[in-house]
Each structure stands twice: as structure tokens, then as C-alpha cells.
């Protein structure tokens, strides 16, 4: 499902480029949650930030962090991907994730459609192994743990924990035959 934030702004009679304040984040979350009723399990929610210059941390907390949490605990879990994010939007999301992770000793990341300042296709802090897995899957589209292990010079067993962690963070997909896919 594609959600264009500029279109939601227009529906709410708010003019972009700035999506700011906690109240606005809450209102967006409610609207998006309503639209998400039409989504099926494991579908990707593509948030399109076209024409958005700034999102502040209050908006990020009320919309993006809530959606990331929901993607993991919803009875119908889903994946999230961000599209058309400006550098300032990326920096602000990264700063919030950074504060969250350093305080909670818990990782938070989200997949992006375009390349980010970290030369990868995600915002957040992942270790090198996790980063390599995301890169491999983005290029190869599908792989087993063995195939990824061969590429990285490690065993599938050693990779298991990282793959499960990425899957639980909703950063990669997994089939019942233990094939892995990018979001």
C-alpha cells in the first residue's frame, strides 16, 4: 500500500513542506491506520515523503515509531519502506532512532527506497553483518541462509541470529521454506 503524505496533508488541509508537531503526527497515524484496514498480512506500507522537507521528532515519534512498533505486534504484521525522503527528513529520523537505541539498548531501523547518507538503503544503526545481509538481499532479491553465508564467508548457523533479528525488526522477509527476501 502506498501512502503519500502530501496527499494526506491535503486531505487535512495542511500545506507541506513541514510535517511537524505531535498533534499532527497523531492525526496522520489515525488516518493511515484507517487506510491500513485494507492491507493484507505481510504487505509493505510504502510511505512517500514527496514534497516533504521536514518532519520533527514529535511527528516521527507519533507516526513513524508507532508504525514501526505496530508492524511488529499487529495481528496482521506488515513491513515499512520510506520513499522520497529529503536529507533533513533522513537526518531527523536518524537522530530519533539514535536517541532511542542508545537509551534503550534496542535497535530501531527502517528500510528506504533510495540510498541514504550511510550509503545503504535503511535509516538506523545496524552492525556490519546485518548491513551486508540487507545489501545482498537487495541485489539478489532472494536467498537462503546458506547462500548468504557463502557470500559472507560464514556458516548459515552463524548467520541465523542476524537473519532472525532482521526479520523480527521487519527489515527482511522470510518464506516458510526459509528463503529470505528484501522488503
Amino acid at each position: 500500500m502506498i501512502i503519500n503524505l502530501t496527499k494526506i496533508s491535503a486531505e487535512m488541509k495542511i500545506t507541506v513542506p513541514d510535517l511537524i508537531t505531535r498533534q499532527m503526527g497523531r492525526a496522520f497515524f489515525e488516518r493511515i491506520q484507517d487506510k491500513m484496514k485494507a492491507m493484507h498480512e505481510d504487505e509493505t506500507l510504502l510511505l512517500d515523503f514527496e514534497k516533504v522537507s521536514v518532519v520533527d521528532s514529535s511527528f516521527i515519534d507519533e507516526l513513524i515509531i508507532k508504525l514501526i512498533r505496530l508492524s511488529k505486534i499487529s495481528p496482521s504484521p506488515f513491513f515499512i519502506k520510506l520513499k522520497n525522503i529529503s536529507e533533513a527528513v533522513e537526518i531527523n529520523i536518524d537522530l530519533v532512532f539514535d536517541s532511542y537505541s542508545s537509551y534503550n539498548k534496542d535497535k530501531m531501523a527502517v528500510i528506504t527506497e533510495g540510498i541514504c547518507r550511510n550509503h545503504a538503503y535503511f535509516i538506523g544503526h545496524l552492525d556490519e553483518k546485518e548491513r551486508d545481509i540487507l545489501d545482498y538481499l537487495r541485489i539478489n532479491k532472494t536467498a537462503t541462509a546458506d547462500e548468504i553465508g557463502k557470500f559472507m564467508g560464514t556458516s548459515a548457523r552463524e548467520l541465523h541470529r542476524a537473519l532472525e533479528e532482521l526479520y523480527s525488526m521487519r527489515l527482511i522477509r522470510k518464506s516458510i521454506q526459509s528463503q529470505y527476501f528484501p522488503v
Partner: protein
Amino acid sequence: MDRSTVILLPDKFRDPNYFEEIIDIKDDVLTGARTLDLSKIAFIEPYSMISLLLLGKLYLKNRGDRLKLINIPIPIHQYLDRMDFFGNGLFVTDEMLSEKMLYKRSAFSKSVIEITEIPNKERESIKVIREIIALFRKRSSNILKYRMTDNIIEYFVTVISELCQNIYEHSLDSGFLAMQTYSMGKENIVRLVISDSGIGIRKSFENTASVSYDSTADLIEKAITMPISSKREFGYGLCQVNSIVKMLNGILFIRSEDAYVTTLYHKKTQGSAVMFSKNELSRFSGTQVSITLSS
């Protein structure tokens, strides 16, 4: 005029640290004065101007009357008028400037955001925040003319939004914002000030058992380095502001009640401390924040 009710203010309106001397005489003003003599003031910058406004607000609240300003030097009067200082009705003065002495509001002089009140109600406040940001975007090329770098406009939009939201979310009071670029000697300065005279950071955390601290300054330090919140599980606002000031190599100054914390990222060298704090200062209601970039 009864001279005992007149307090001559010293020339300490040059930056947040100097202004501490004005706060030190705050109790004399609130209990004994009726009139403030500004004749010694040679310069006034946005933080001191807004703090003076808060002093006037406190006076009105405590005494039910407005403080009178006298002997305002003409350049100071012109500046205060240009910044809409008198528009809030917190002070009285008999001294009026003629029309031809007032600063013109030309596009060239729009290197300021005049004093704007941030209401303490969410709905009204959000409307004002959006108006301020729209005005800032319009004037940003003047305000940031000495510091125009990638994303700096977006950084300030974020900072303005976060700090203004803190007023209605945490202070239980309204507040003020002002922004200006100005020169002092060879230094070009951009200063954003967002202040209130509300309950202060410490009181807003009073019922938050999960956050421990041993002084007001310690709590301020925690609030700018960790995503703590007095209202919800996490609060990212002040951390975000601090991170942005760090990226811009600026100065963040936060004063609340009896303490301040300042981060001097512009003077950072390898291994040096950037954060300084002070407790047991003269008490001044609310939270005052100043962000400064200099070049």
C-alpha cells in the same frame, strides 16, 4: 516621582551570562520597584530582551500592575519597538518615538523574527508555530545570511517546532520567541530565543519516578542527552535540538529556575568538554532557551 521605586538597570543585556546580573536583582524589582531606568543600557540582544519581557510578565502577575520603563536610550527604544517588545502590553512608558525615528520594516531589515507569543493551548499554539515557521522560511535568507549551509533552514524549522511545543506541553504557561542576526565587533551572530515563565523543567519532572537526578542542572543535562519525558515513555525534542546545535557547531544555553546548562560546540577541540552547568543561581521562573551560531 519617588526615586526609591526606580531601579537603574546595569548594562548587562549583552548575552545570557551577563543577564544573570539582572536576574540577581529580580527580587528587588518584583518587590520594590515601580520603574526601571534603562539609561545605562548600550546594547540589548534577543535573550535579554525576552527575559526582560518575562520579568515584566512576572511583575504584572505578582503585583497586578505594569512596570514603567524610563530613560530608554533612542537606539534601544528603536530596537525594542522594531521587535514588537511593547506590543505585549507588559510595560508602560511615556517616552514615544516619532514616526520618522522608528525603524522601517523593509525587506532589508527582515533579518529578525519579532517577539511572538506562544500560547499555552495546543490548538492555538500549533497555529502560531506554523505561522512562525512560514515567516522564518520567508526571511531565512536574511536571518541566516552569514551561515547558509545545507539543511540549515530545515534544522531551524525542527528546533523552532520542538522548543515551541515544549512550552504548551510542559510549562503550563505561554512563552515568547524571537530570532535575529546581528554583528558584534567582527562576529556575526544568529540567535534564536524561546522562553517561558512556567513551572520549569524540574517541576515538570516532579512525578516522573523513572528519571533520577541530583540537581536541576543534572536534570537539564539528562533532558538534552537522553530521550526522557515527563509526559510519555520517551521524549526526543531536547535531544534533537542538542544534536542539531552540535551539527551546526553552535551554542545551546538552557536556563531553568535556579540552574543553567550550556554546550559550546563552536569551541570543541579533541578531548575538550563542551557542556558546562551551574546550579544555585538566583531563581527565575520557567525555562529560557537560547541557540546561537556565530561566524
